[in-house]
């Protein structure tokens, strides 16, 4: 399988070899059911608890029991939104934003269809929320459940979650934040800020695809999304995915050790990539560039070329990235995030997201910087619009 430069880490990351190593014994030997009474199965439970502690440590959760293992970030988001609304009872007012991940927007729109009031906050052209609007909506007088992401997957733009949390809590609401893109990339501490619920996805921080976490602060009422057995203290049924739980624990442990160093490393590479592209390609702009952003992400639009075409030409030279272009998505809709930011149409089609990880090197960046101008020039030659 061809892969030389992987700069699509917001889509998924490599499973760290340490993580795979940590998981293997739980396939080969310790495959017992942690709910079993016998030593062989029951003995596995302590490894789950250890993993729980490692996840708690990474996000600064006070109590390991606040960590609920789920099957993915999407499950965590669904559970947060629907579980909080259900546990609150009545018809709480839902608050979200136009730039959330589909796993938040999906359940929000579902509930709206069922008759719940939903307020979807706008962002400006830099991708930022209007905090006055947050305040206003959260004080609407009705009980609220707010789901507002921490860092955006497409642009890397970071919302001021501590401030948002304060506003929501002042209004008496429940506050969920989708932390899938920030956890493991930047230090956070849920202990110090008013977050009731936080979603995590393993495969964004070098654990495998198919494991997630919902952090639920002690005392937060939430209806389980998967009901049945008593696993996860009755909050999430289903026999535990022991290998992945252990793997996620390992990934969180590694992230905690490396985060500071890695963030700096990624920021340097990202900044060089960004500056290099802007210098070598006319008609390029960074979406959300002026805002506070994740250190690993840049979203660049190239005027008059189409993202899918860019991606495929990048793929041809072994560079893996992604696009918000309509033509690339199954639905033929351009990115809802870039649309919410009012990215001009001539730019909307040619957006490419580069997202780095600790595994990227200076040579990776050199290579991308060598290829991009050639590809953009080539595609502009083909374009009827670019010949002026």
């Amino acid at each position, binding site marked *: 399988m061809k892969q030389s430069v992987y700069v699509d880490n917001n889509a998924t990351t490599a499973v760290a070899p340490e993580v795979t190593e940590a998981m293997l014994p739980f396939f080969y030997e310790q495959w017992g059911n942690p709910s079993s009474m016998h030593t062989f199965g029951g003995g596995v439970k302590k490894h789950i608890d250890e993993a729980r502690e490692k996840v708690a440590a990474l996000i600064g959760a006070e109590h390991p029991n606040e960590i609920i293992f789920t099957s993915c970030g999407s499950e965590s988001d669904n559970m947060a939104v629907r579980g909080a609304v259900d546990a609150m009872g009545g018809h709480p007012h839902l608050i979200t934003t136009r730039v959330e991940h589909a796993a938040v927007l999906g359940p929000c729109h579902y509930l709206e269809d069922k008759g719940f009031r939903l307020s979807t906050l706008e962002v400006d052209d830099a991708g930022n929320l209007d905090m006055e609007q947050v305040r206003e909506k959260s004080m609407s007088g009705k009980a609220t459940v707010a789901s507002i992401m921490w860092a955006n997957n497409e642009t890397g733009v970071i919302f001021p979650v501590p401030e948002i949390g304060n506003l929501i809590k002042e209004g008496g609401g429940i506050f969920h934040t989708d932390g899938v893109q920030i956890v493991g990339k930047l230090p956070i501490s849920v202990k110090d800020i008013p977050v009731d619920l936080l979603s995590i996805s393993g495969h964004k921080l070098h654990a495998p695809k198919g494991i997630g976490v919902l952090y639920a602060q002690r005392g937060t009422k939430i209806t389980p999304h998967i009901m049945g057995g008593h696993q996860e203290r009755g909050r999430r049924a289903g026999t535990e995915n022991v290998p992945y739980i252990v793997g996620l624990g390992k990934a969180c442990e590694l992230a905690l050790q490396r985060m500071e160093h890695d963030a700096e490393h990624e920021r340097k590479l990202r900044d060089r990539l960004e500056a290099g592209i802007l210098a070598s390609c006319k008609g390029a702009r960074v979406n959300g560039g002026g805002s506070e952003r994740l250190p690993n992400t840049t979203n660049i639009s190239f005027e008059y070329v189409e993202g899918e075409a860019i991606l495929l030409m990048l793929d041809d030279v072994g560079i893996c990235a992604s696009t918000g*272009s309509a033509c690339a998505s199954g639905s033929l809709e351009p990115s809802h995030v870039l649309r919410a930011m009012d990215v001009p*149409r001539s730019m909307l089609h040619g957006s490419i997201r580069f997202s780095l990880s600790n595994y990227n090197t200076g040579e990776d960046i050199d290579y991308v910087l060598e290829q991009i101008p050639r590809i953009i020039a080539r595609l502009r030659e*083909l374009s*009827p*619009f670019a010949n002026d």
Partner: protein
Amino acid sequence: MWEYTDKVTDHFKNPRNVGAVENPDGDGLAGSLACGDALRLTFKLGEEKKIAEAKFQTFGCASAIASSSALTVMLIGKTVDEADQITNADIIDYLGDLPKQKVHCSVMGREALEAAIYNYRTGKTFDKKLDGEVICHCFGATDKEIEKVARGQKLTSAE
């Protein structure tokens, strides 16, 4: 990930007949202007009134580029009447196949061809609402830059 046939990939990576023919006999622009995909097709006749030269410029995805490239190859050597028989289904056949969601990219080829033939036959610019037959899955208004180009081509832009 779209599943493209080898032929689509080949025509995308090595597009044939890129550019604009000088002093064309037929010149047509088509596309879903509302969403920004566009294709300009020009051709010139040679001996026995057969198309000797055909070139394209495309702003669009890999399927759009491959469809345009394929179309130019299919045109060369045909009379205008023969060329007029080429449908988007023929373009898809020529390419092996296109993903269902990408069929409109080949429709764009057929439309540009129609526009270019109309231009050849009447000397006028094809002034049919260009977005009429292209299913644009996007929303909303036109982009000023694209509108400007469209006007430069003396074509009607979408509202």
